[in-house]
């Protein structure tokens, strides 16, 4: 065991490793800072974080958990896409295939579904937590706006995904939801037509929702998530309520 650790430590000094992770293997704060700065994914975040911001009570980790849900949903969603045809009535037959013949198909679908519900809940909770802590105040006001936009995207992601199983639950939930849209004065019917690709929920709506759910909305969400994280750093790190820091 110890041997392995040592060998790994050796490996981290090799040219190959260094070509990938330029920060090197040192234990100093400089190395640790570089590890974050030099990583395209991590560089959005600050190199240092206030110790207090890591306390559970400050954030309840709601933002982290929302991101985790998003990642779980991305992975399970891509796996589900391997078995799914956005066509009527094959979409429903695919649900049955997931249930009855695909290895771990039920688990995949369950995990995707429950994670989706969890994400909606967590994002809402995140919003309220931020509000009650006053973390939306300047200089973080624009990040709050991005947060609200992300909430809308989350809801729309969940809503578009709701139709995909093409069962009675999906069909009528979307029908009810899209009928609400139709109540918009003047443009209602047109907006609904745009979203459904028709006057009723049908095969066109399924295809449209599929594309929205699997391509367009996740991309937009990823974009805004990136900005959201980057802005945390740019707006002075996570809000901790410590007066001296502001």
């Amino acid at each position, binding site marked *: 065991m110890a041997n392995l650790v040592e060998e790994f430590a050796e490996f981290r000094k090799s040219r190959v490793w260094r070509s990938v992770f330029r920060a090197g293997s040192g234990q100093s*704060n400089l190395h*640790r800072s570089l590890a*974050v700065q030099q990583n395209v994914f*991590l560089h959005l*975040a600050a*190199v*240092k*974080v*206030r*110790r207090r911001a*890591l306390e559970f009570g400050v954030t309840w*980790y709601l933002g*982290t*958990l929302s*991101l*985790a849900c998003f990642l*779980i949903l991305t992975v399970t969603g891509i796996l589900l896409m391997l078995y799914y045809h956005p066509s009527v*009535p094959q979409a*429903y037959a695919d*649900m049955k295939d997931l249930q009855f013949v695909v290895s771990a198909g039920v*688990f995949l679908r*369950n*995990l*995707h*579904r*429950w994670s989706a*519900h*969890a994400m909606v809940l967590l994002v809402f909770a995140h*919003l*309220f937590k931020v*509000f009650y802590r*006053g973390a*939306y105040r*300047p200089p*973080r006001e*624009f990040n*709050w*706006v991005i947060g*609200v936009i992300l909430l*809308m995207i989350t*809801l729309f992601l969940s*809503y578009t995904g*709701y139709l995909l199983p*093409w*069962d*009675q*639950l999906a*069909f*009528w*939930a979307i*029908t*009810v*939801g899209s009928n*609400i*849209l*139709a*109540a*918009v*004065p003047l443009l209602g019917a047109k907006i609904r037509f745009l979203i459904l690709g028709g006057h009723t929920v*049908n095969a066109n709506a399924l295809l449209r929702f599929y594309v929205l759910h699997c391509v367009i909305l996740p991309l937009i969400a990823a974009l805004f998530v990136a900005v959201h994280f980057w802005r945390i750093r740019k707006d002075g790190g996570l809000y901790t309520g410590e007066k001296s820091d502001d």
Partner: protein
Amino acid sequence: MTEPKDFTASMDSDSRRTPVRVAFVTRRTSPQVRTRDDRYVMTYPEVLFRAAVASEILLLALALVSLFWNAPLEGLADPMQTPNPAKAPWYFLGLQELLHYFPPVVGGVLIPTLVVLALIVIPYFGINIEAEGFWIRNRDAKVRTLILVVALVAVFLSWFKVWAVLIPTVAIVALTLVGAFPSAHAGAFRRWLHLKPLPFWIMSWFLIVATILTLIGTFFRGAGWALVWPWEVD
């Protein structure tokens, strides 16, 4: 070294107070830099590991749920056969509940649009930023205004028979008023209420009303959107 010094030497590692650091090495001292700042932790590895642990706990919980509870699946979509009741996804059920009371333009368009706009503009209004205790100034005028506004809202809600919103509204306003007149020997809770700003009250009102409406829509609405007990909801 006869000219007078126009600077003073000192040691500091606070980057904000002394952005430029110059170290003078004299014979009697050796260089000393604070290497640790206890108020900060490095993102790598501490924060990343913590985030990973939180995510793993979440995934673990969701995986266990997924092992034991199957996602709902009903019969093939049939446009000819309307289930009764036809329900939207749970996070829209509060909205659907509103539609039961208000005309679609109000319940389905006006209210959600206002909510979203209100959420967006929150950080751009001074009242939300100052967060001054609601009752600290102009208390009597505010009490009068509050009662007037709430009476108008109550009439409006009664007109549409929206008891599910009216009752929590009245309850929250009552709670607000409890905090309005803290006597000298008032309890800690009452003093806490007294110091809460207006945005707190509005957001709490929104949160509670939205939760109640969603719960009613999810658990207490059966065929024909009639009130039923949770165990009677299919």
